[in-house]
């Protein structure tokens, strides 16, 4: 049976590249984002929704269940970033970051797991960030929201292990996507200086870790976070 892969935030950036990667491998890919995607392929289905909207998320999973009957891999890529000094951060920014980065991951994981558990098989990949391990100044809220995702993943891995579902995180370094377009160059350079391997991250670096987590042979790996760039947590 062909694998069904759901990628959130698949319209652009890492999500889009992941979608194209799996389509090239002949997998059925379902993507979602708040706006329409221009990705056209017979293996690709797109849902327009906000991952924080419980009703819309449930509806999408209901349609996936009815059409395919199963879902094998969930990649919770949708996320937003914001840099600001803690003292200058409005509460609304905190709410937006947590709602998208944490609540969105929670909601999609919960609904996907309900379908995955029937086959006693599933792989969930969540997105953290090196900002967690590096305790970066100016990223208190973003790093906290990603830290929450990591913690959620660890506990989920325990609760879902008996259902045949693994849960892991990939924590990318800065990659040239829209997510970091507003971050000043000197900040990016400073961040790279903390890495053991001093270069900008590539989307292929992320794809490599995702491929590892979803590999059939990775069934004994769960609750882990892999930091790219040689960042040591």
């Amino acid at each position, binding site marked *: 049976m062909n694998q069904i892969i759901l990628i959130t935030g698949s319209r652009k950036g890492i999500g889009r590249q992941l979608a194209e990667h799996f389509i090239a491998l002949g997998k059925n890919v379902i993507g979602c984002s708040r706006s329409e995607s221009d990705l056209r392929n017979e293996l690709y289905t797109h849902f327009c929704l906000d991952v924080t909207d419980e009703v819309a998320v449930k*509806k999408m999973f209901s349609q996936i269940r009815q059409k395919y009957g199963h879902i094998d891999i969930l990649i919770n890529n949708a996320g937003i970033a914001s840099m600001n000094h803690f003292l200058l951060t409005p509460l609304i920014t905190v709410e937006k970051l947590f709602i998208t980065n944490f609540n969105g991951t929670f909601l999609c994981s919960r609904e996907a797991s309900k379908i995955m558990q029937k086959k006693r098989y599933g792989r969930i990949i969540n997105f953290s960030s090196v900002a967690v391990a590096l305790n970066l100044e100016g990223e208190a809220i973003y790093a906290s929201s990603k830290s929450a995702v990591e913690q959620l993943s660890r506990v989920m891995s325990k609760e879902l292990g008996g259902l045949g579902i693994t849960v892991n995180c990939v924590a990318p370094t800065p990659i040239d996507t829209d997510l970091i377009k507003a971050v000043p160059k000197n900040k990016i350079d400073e961040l790279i200086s903390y890495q053991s391997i001093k270069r900008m991250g590539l989307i292929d670096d992320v794809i490599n870790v995702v491929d590892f987590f979803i590999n059939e042979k990775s069934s004994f790996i769960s609750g882990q976070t892999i930091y790219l760039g040689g960042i040591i947590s």
Partner: protein
Amino acid sequence: MNKINREKISELVFNCIKKYQEEYEQIIDIAEGEQTRLFGGNGQLDSLGLVSLVVSIEEEIETELGIAIVLADEKAMSRRTSPFSRIGNLIDYIDELVSS
């Protein structure tokens, strides 16, 4: 109307229990009917079993009645008597959710 709904819900719940037993090869003794203990105390389901049954019931309700519900919601968790303790409590709780 409400009575009919409850009967329908009861039928759905017992069907899901039957399917659960077949799918996971686990016996749930339902000799006590709606008084059968499901979870907690002397319940017959462990937490993974409860998760599987709850998911199956949510799907069945959506398929048969066209209503999407989340059974393990805040109301369910904060109740003095858990909706998951006995089959009858679960049916009552679903009836309440579906009616609202």
